[in-house]
């Protein structure tokens, strides 16, 4: 059952809207029921809350002015980019304001000489690389939703992507940010280089899921395209053999640009949807991408295929052309939504284990699934141990609660095995209640103290990341696919 939608009414809404209208055009202050409803959730559709007001400022000064109105009235506010987040980070707060950054969407500068881009928060991730491409440059972090997610959201979530194994996360690529703090002041965090004087406030802000302020401008590093890129799709007789292969690659001192693993259930779904050439009978497959200077790339690629063979690979398919490579990636990226073809409903989990414990965690997940009679498909970033188990179930058959329980147990199992509750989807509203599984009361208390340093009154995206008794009493509803996802435009891994 989805959480019932709630709405707010009353004088506060009118008073706030009146103040916003003093500096925003009428169309940029949304208070009507229908308009508000389109902001009631993000990509985690099981959590819904209609806000009191939605505002659409056009620049940093207007964002700051909106925040000052909220601060004056002590009204909580939630920043929102494209709303593609998967942990409810942009879930509105009851009686609160949603500050949409969708009008701040300019690429302010592509600085080729210094290899950096200056961006407003509403710029789509993929558009950065598109704008940089004519200069042989690109922006490395590539979350799978990169066509539709924004850099501001990436900053909030410290987003990764398939290639972060080699190239790092958003935090490794952001140099400088302009931020509106909870009191409406505008400050700069970070600097034009990696040099710092004083604490790395930039680094704390990154990945704070909108709880420490609103980013209104960001300077990111751009990288040069590698000379060569090689891709192999290899089938294995077991998940264990595929896992061992990843270990052997690391032991051979090879850092691939990406290593992705899919199990047979995931391949079955992906193949049905895309026809990328996967062997659906294979228990597991790896997609391994190498990049770098041409000679070394070729040498390491030979080593790589040899490692695959040594681990009993049943088929090694080298995708030689860019088209072939794109096809393999398309299958991988479609896998998630494609699971809808083999199960009426499913829940996506996101957890991390030390890579060396991959086989163990997969065996445990399979056991846990069979104990409750539910299937679990696995598609994941094998290089860094980031799992995305998909718990398949049928809402109609009343399996929701069981599936939800299994999914949460899997995340907590990751912590038990020395990993993390989340590798990239964030904690948001979804997992705040699981935080005590990973952090002590003291750890969480220090995070709260940091938060109060940034935001003394707790107005900035309250109820996210850090557990609260109110939040943890509520239950999420089932996962519902985003229309873009059903159309195959985006995916969630």
């Amino acid at each position: 059952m989805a959480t019932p939608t709630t709405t707010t009414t009353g004088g506060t809404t009118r008073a706030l809207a009146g103040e916003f209208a003093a500096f925003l055009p009428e169309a940029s202050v949304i208070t009507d029921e229908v308009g508000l409803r389109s902001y009631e959730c993000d990509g985690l559709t099981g959590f819904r809350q209609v806000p009191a007001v939605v505002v659409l400022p056009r620049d940093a000064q207007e964002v700051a002015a909106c925040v000052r109105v909220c601060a004056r009235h002590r009204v909580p506010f939630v920043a929102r980019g494209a709303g593609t987040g998967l942990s409810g980070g942009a879930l509105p707060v009851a009686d609160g304001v949603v500050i949409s950054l969708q009008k701040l969407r300019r690429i302010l500068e592509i600085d080729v000489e210094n290899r950096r881009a200056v961006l407003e928060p509403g710029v789509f991730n993929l558009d950065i690389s598109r704008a940089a491409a004519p200069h042989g440059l690109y922006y490395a972090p590539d979350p799978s939703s990169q066509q539709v997610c924004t850099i501001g959201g990436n900053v909030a979530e410290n987003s990764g992507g398939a290639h972060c194994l080699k190239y790092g996360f958003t935090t490794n690529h952001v140099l400088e940010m302009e931020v509106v703090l909870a009191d409406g002041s505008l400050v700069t965090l970070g600097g034009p280089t990696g040099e710092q004087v004083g604490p790395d406030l930039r680094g704390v802000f990154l990945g704070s899921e909108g709880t420490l302020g609103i980013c209104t401008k960001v300077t990111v590093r751009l990288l040069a395209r590698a000379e060569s890129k090689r891709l192999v799709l290899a089938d294995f007789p077991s998940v264990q053999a595929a896992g061992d292969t990843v270990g052997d690659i690391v032991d051979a001192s090879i850092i691939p640009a990406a290593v992705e693993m899919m199990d047979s259930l995931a391949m079955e779904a992906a193949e049905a949807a895309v026809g990328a050439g996967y062997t659906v009978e294979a228990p597991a497959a790896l997609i391994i991408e190498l990049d770098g200077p041409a000679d070394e790339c070729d040498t390491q690629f030979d080593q790589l295929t040899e490692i695959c063979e040594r681990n009993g690979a049943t088929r090694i398919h080298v995708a030689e052309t860019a088209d072939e490579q794109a096809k393999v990636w398309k299958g991988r990226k479609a896998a998630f939504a494609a699971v809808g073809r083999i199960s009426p409903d499913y829940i996506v989990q996101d957890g991390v284990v030390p890579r060396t414990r991959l086989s163990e965690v997969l065996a445990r997940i399979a056991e846990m699934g069979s104990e409750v009679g539910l299937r679990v498909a696995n598609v994941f970033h094998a290089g860094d141990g980031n799992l995305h188990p998909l718990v398949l179930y049928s809402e109609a058959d009343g399996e929701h609660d069981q599936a939800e329980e299994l999914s949460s147990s899997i995340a907590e199992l990751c912590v038990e095995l020395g990993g993390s509750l989340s590798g990239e989807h964030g904690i948001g509203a979804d997992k705040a209640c699981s935080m005590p599984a990973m952090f002590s009361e003291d750890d969480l208390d220090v995070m709260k103290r940091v938060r109060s340093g940034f935001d003394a009154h707790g107005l900035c995206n309250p109820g996210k990341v850090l557990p609260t008794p109110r939040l943890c009493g509520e239950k999420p509803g089932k996962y519902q696919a985003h229309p873009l996802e059903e159309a195959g435009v985006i995916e969630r891994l």
Partner: protein
Amino acid sequence: MTTSSATPTVTPGSLDDLRDAVLHHTGPLLVAGAGTASDWAGAPEPGATVLSTAALTGVISHNPGDMTVAVRAGTPLAALQEVVGEHGQRVAFDAARVARGATLGGLFATGDSGPLALTFGSLRDLVIGATVVLADGTVAHSGGHVIKNVAGYDLAKLLHGAQGTLGVVAELILRLHPTPVATATVALPTPLGDAARHAHAVAASPVEASAVQWLQDGAAGRLLARLEGTRDGVAGRVTRLRETLGAGADLLSEAAAAAAWAAHEAAVDGGADDRAVLRIGVTPSLLTDLLTGLADATEVTAAPLTGVATLSVPATTAAVEDVHRRVADLGGTSLLRRRPAGRTDLPALGPAPTSAALLRAVAASLDPDQRFGRGRLAPWLPTGVTA
């Protein structure tokens, strides 16, 4: 735990000891590692108890298969490199003072970095987890043993570059990289004015240099570019790099390369005793003009591709302030690293940034009595004042 009464120094030997020491000694605390950067940043207010990490050493756990290592903060990086080196791994970090015994905690707290920052960033990019002790004895963990992790705030970042304010780092978890099989350095004699052009040519070529540094060498200078990778691969790239840099670019022998990088380290880490050493960072394209405009600067080293430089100027308030002001005018950062003994009057920091009030608020929340590193970030974090 040992306590010396002559100089108020406490040397805890475990995390519990460290927490007890913080709770037991009620006044200001000055964290000390190997002492390789004791005069960096603002001068600490006198009278603090020295909290030494000299006994907080050793690897807690090394997981070669996961390429991570957990280590106590007082461990010298050079010692850690030996341990992980046995497994063909390294911490991809090469700040100049590592050779003098600098500890992980000290390198982290001072936000130091070396030439490899071009490729691997600084310790803020390599540290994936931390255990810290706050002024009220709270022990807090963040991050963990996995490289990919977005659960909770990245508290470790707060202590990076904090210069010993806010709290003390007890343990760090780092990600490791494979030690390259082969390394080669190509050197090109070039004055500073042309170094950036050559460095950009290197960056535009596909050789993927892991470090590119310019250093002053008498009246002229030389550009060093380091390549790392497989034996054949590096050999091939050396050829391409020499073609890119043109006449005068030479592959250095192993000994010559070691000497060249040692000279670079000495320039960054040394400096005459009667001069002030500053570390600056500006948008890379602005660096050359800035440095050539500083007529009094000596022992200049510069990373043309990252915009970071280290230089010495006369130890006068006017000369140091001039550097701070010029850098601030370009939107950059500057920090006084070394000064002649007793010259606590030299300004350590440039003009306060827009985030100074936020810094004070965060400090007030974590260390309300400003026990840790009082004076280190003055005047941004004023002494004797709580926000």
